[in-house]
């Protein structure tokens, strides 16, 4: 008996759906609703008769009829909405307002520093430089000593340090540059090396429109046999073309960083003036020897740049302090 009840429920469903498909106007739909879903409609009638079934079948039959009611109601709602849509197409077009704004999602976005870093890293990744990252809280020896900046060296004045624990055996600081990743990488890896390493750096500096005590840096390092200053120029020239535009030129001028020799400051031509965007140079033989590389066999170049400074140039941002203020009025422009 239960089998029969189910079977007849299935038949009812088919019949109802067939006739619903045939209903083309709102009045036909209303007739259909009364016939199947109305208080005296087919479904209600059958539900009322469930009580007359044998007790062991009632439950099954009731449940399947209820399910049918739900699915027929849904089908009816769909048919009504489809019909009204097709009828609305006959409404004159001047009543349709295309100037109403569209339904949009919310646009998320990257922080401009992240955006700039991805762009820069992408350029170097394409040239075979792999991205590596390292600790922000760093040992003094990596941040200074192994970069040819021993204790009591005046070059330490160039980078005022924020100390975490100066009294411990391994003096601990907030890295002042991403250059420690040169050492960490070379300690782990034999030449050839080509890496770029982004991340936060910190200096004990007064803050103003062009100075922040926290900033990002991107370090680059290439070590192999036969790497020269000309290769450094070629690599950075390509970088400048891709980040600043294909017509951009770069310029080297002599500068001093203890872990390179010769050292240079790199400028890019920007609206008719030269703007310094990074420090670079040939890795100092002492640095190579310090990590166990044979400096008579290998040479290398290194460079370091500040993505915020480059973003300031590209997007005409007047104050570096915007970057970590996290104001949506700033962030939403990127």
């Amino acid at each position, binding site marked *: 008996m239960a089998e029969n009840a*189910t079977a007849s429920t299935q038949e009812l469903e088919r019949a109802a759906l067939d006739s619903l498909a045939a209903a083309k106007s709102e009045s036909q739909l209303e007739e259909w609703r009364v016939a199947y879903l109305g208080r005296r409609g087919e479904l209600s009638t059958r539900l009322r008769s469930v009580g007359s079934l044998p007790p062991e079948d009632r439950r099954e039959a009731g*449940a399947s009829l*209820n*399910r049918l009611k*739900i*699915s027929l109601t*849904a089908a009816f709602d769909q048919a009504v909405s489809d019909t009204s849509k097709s009828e609305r197409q006959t409404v004159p077009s001047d009543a349709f307002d295309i100037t109403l*704004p569209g*339904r949009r*999602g*919310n*646009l*998320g*976005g*990257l922080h401009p520093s992240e955006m700039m870093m*991805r762009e820069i890293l992408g350029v170097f990744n394409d*040239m*075979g430089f*792999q*991205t*590596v*990252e390292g600790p922000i*809280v760093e*040992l003094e020896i990596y941040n200074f000593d192994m970069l040819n900046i021993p204790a*009591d060296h*005046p070059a330490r004045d160039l980078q005022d340090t*924020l100390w975490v*624990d100066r009294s*411990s055996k391994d003096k*601990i600081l907030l890295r002042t540059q991403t250059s420690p990743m040169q050492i960490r990488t070379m300690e782990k890896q034999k030449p*050839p090396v080509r890496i770029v390493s982004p991340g*936060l750096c910190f200096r004990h*500096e007064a803050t103003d429109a062009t100075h922040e005590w*926290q900033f990002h840096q991107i370090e680059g390092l*290439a070590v*192999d046999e*036969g*790497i020269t*200053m*000309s*290769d450094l*120029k*070629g690599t950075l*020239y390509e970088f400048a073309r891709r980040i600043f535009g294909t017509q951009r030129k770069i*310029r080297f*001028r*002599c*500068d*001093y960083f203890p872990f390179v*020799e*010769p050292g*240079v400051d790199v400028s890019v031509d920007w609206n008719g003036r030269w703007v310094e965007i990074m420090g670079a140079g*040939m890795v100092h033989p002492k640095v190579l020897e310090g990590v166990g590389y044979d400096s008579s066999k290998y*040479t290398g170049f290194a460079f370091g740049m500040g993505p915020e400074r480059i973003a300031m140039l590209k997007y005409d941002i007047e104050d570096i302090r915007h970057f*970590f203020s*996290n*104001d*949506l009025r700033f*962030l*939403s422009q990127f």
Partner: protein
Amino acid sequence: MKVPLSWLREYVDVNIDVEELAHRLTMAGNEVDSIEKFRHIDNVVVGKVLQVSPHPNADRLRLVQVDDGEGTHEVVCGAPNVAKDQMIAYASVGAVLFDPYSDEDGKTTKLRRTKIRGVESSGMVCSEKELGIGDDHDGILVLPASSPIGTPIGDVIGDAVLDIELTPNRPDCLGVVGVARDVAALTGETLRFPSLDYKTYGPNVDDLAKVTVADGDLSPRYLGAVIRNVKIGPSPEWLQERLLAIGERPINNVVDATNFVMFELGQPLHAFDYDKVKDHHVIVRRATEGEVLTTLDGVDRKLDTESLLITDPNGGIGLAGIMGGENTEISETTTNIFLESANFNPQNNRRTAGMLGMRSEATLRFEKGLRAGLTEVAIKRCLRIILAVADGEVAPGLIDEWPGEGTEQEHVDLTRNHIHRVMGVNYPVDQVEATLSALGFEFAPLDSTKNNGWRVAIPYWRSDIAIPEDLVEELARIIGYDDLPATPVAGQVPRWEPGAKHSFRNRVIDALTAFGMRQTITYAAIADELEAKAPPPAPRPGSSDSTASLKLENAVSGQHTTLRRSLRAPTLESAARNTRTWRAPVALFETGLVFQSNPDPNDPLPSQNEQLTGVLTGPRNDAAWGRDSNNFDFYDAKGAIEHVMEAIGIEAKFIPLEDPSYAQGKAAEIVTNDRKGTPIGTVGVVDPAIWERFDAVTENAAMFELDIEALRGIVDDKTRADSYSPYPRYPDSQRDLALVADIGIQVGDAIRICEQNRLVKSASVFDVYEGGGVGDGKKSIGIRVIYQSDNRTLTSDQVSRAEDQIVRRLEHELGVTLRS
């Protein structure tokens, strides 16, 4: 380092304009920070007095007609010395002049058009003081008759001062001669080295004084000379002007002479009152612990055993290379002088000066390391100057204690191969030799062919030359980098190394930005008060994680004293601040390192783990027609998590969490949906009391945190990539369940029961409703169930049977019934 052009010109001809000179120096490594046109003032030009007539309303004022080359101007002038046909400095309206009547040094005022006693004065005839070139304000400055009318005043009386920001490797350029040497090399001019000749008289210096260097490691060379019968007094004008031009205060002729030589050659010197040095015996030794010296600024300096002291048999008379002692200071009554020109250990000098807080012009030079040879050149030059400005008789000979003799590197071998190896190009032999010569380097060919390279002697003024690369840089900086070719890096691209952290992070970040959130980056060090507003999560019970925070020893400000232990407070703070200025949705997240002391004794560094925190608050959408205008709630934050999990291919489940940062009962811990149940984050409604602390204008906020390190570990540990699985080829059936449940029933439990049925592909909640028609304490739940088999088409009966099983379990296990 300030370098007046007039001083520079004593040693080298400058035939290019000052801007070009500054540019060339900068390109060669001596960056000219600014060119101070010392006496250049805008809107002040050379003018000619055409006529002088009385002021109609004032006896002491006169009306002066001035021609400035562009026209005639009538100026009211009170100066007694103004006269017809004088060439004068005429300031027109807008000129910024020094205020001669102000007590405040260097106060300037802008010249405006004014009426003086009823007559309008269009400009001013300036005094020395108004131009800032002297103290005279008794009358106007009268210029040479040859001065061309209309010329900017700076071109007539000005002297440009180059302010050079020197790098620490170039102490030679802390002397004007050093800069002149670079200028000569860069412009093809010849250096005119100043004269070292002087006359001597009387007994030999060895009969007058004695020097003992007890600690030769800290004082490799010590030279002494004696000058008798000097006349202490003010320096002559030329010497005072030299010092004033670089901002140094003249003291007396002998002290000024030592300072002059320091700024000329880069070697600090010190003059002692010879008669106050006990036994005329100078002993250079380490101080004893706690030994005190009163330096000539009158301060008692307490020293340690690493402080190098200049002493006589009675005790300290000077702090080596830092400052002299008060007891042997040159005074008006001094007649005989002991002059010191010494070489001190740079690290030790820097250490002691740093310890005592006494960085000075002397330590600025000593700390960079000077060569021993410079002492001899400088003392001779200084003796010559002292004779010229203070008379006296120089005793013949020099005391020369040189314990470090023979320890300095003497030469560097530079091969042509090495130049090529570093630069990628080779310079012609002639160019190399010409450049080295221009810089004053002496060299000889390494071998007879002359083509392989050179043995280059390190000159006494260059302490920074030690390896061939240093000489390569000398060549490159003088020759210039402009012609250097730009070549790509050749050779083998390094083998790819796994473990890149950023690529995984980027997937998470991109999922969140696609979800509509914005990335923030805050400071890694924050104030304790900020962290206390939303404390980091407590450590897991039984875990060894330490939660001690790390303080900075020298924070830049009270706002940034402590390394953050979580991103909660900073992200909540960013979100709250934005609610006050941003009317659209505020949905922010930050990824970054958080820091805690490390329990591992073998790792000196603190733990630095990557975390992600997101906060959503305020309206879910911009106010717009047809859009939901509700506020963000728990389920938005949970949705963000689900979005990320789908993007990185991790199945997560949410289990109830008690965390004081979240509102009671409205928080979940996120764990992996596997046997391990690895914790990967939390999500919840921020506890209202905590949110209130951030002064937001929104009433509540939802927050989530993800442990990026843990997620990265899980993704890295996956043995297989998430592989494609063929979608089922047989049709599915969709059935909806309308259920009624007690209000306390968790919908997740109902979904789980549905999904546990083997014919069910998925089950999703399409409606949850409480209130009218449902009954008190009840809620209605609509669940859409998709039935599907991988190997056959399900019949309606099969689906119905499965559905019945589900309904029975729902009723049996949860008391959830079909809605009738």
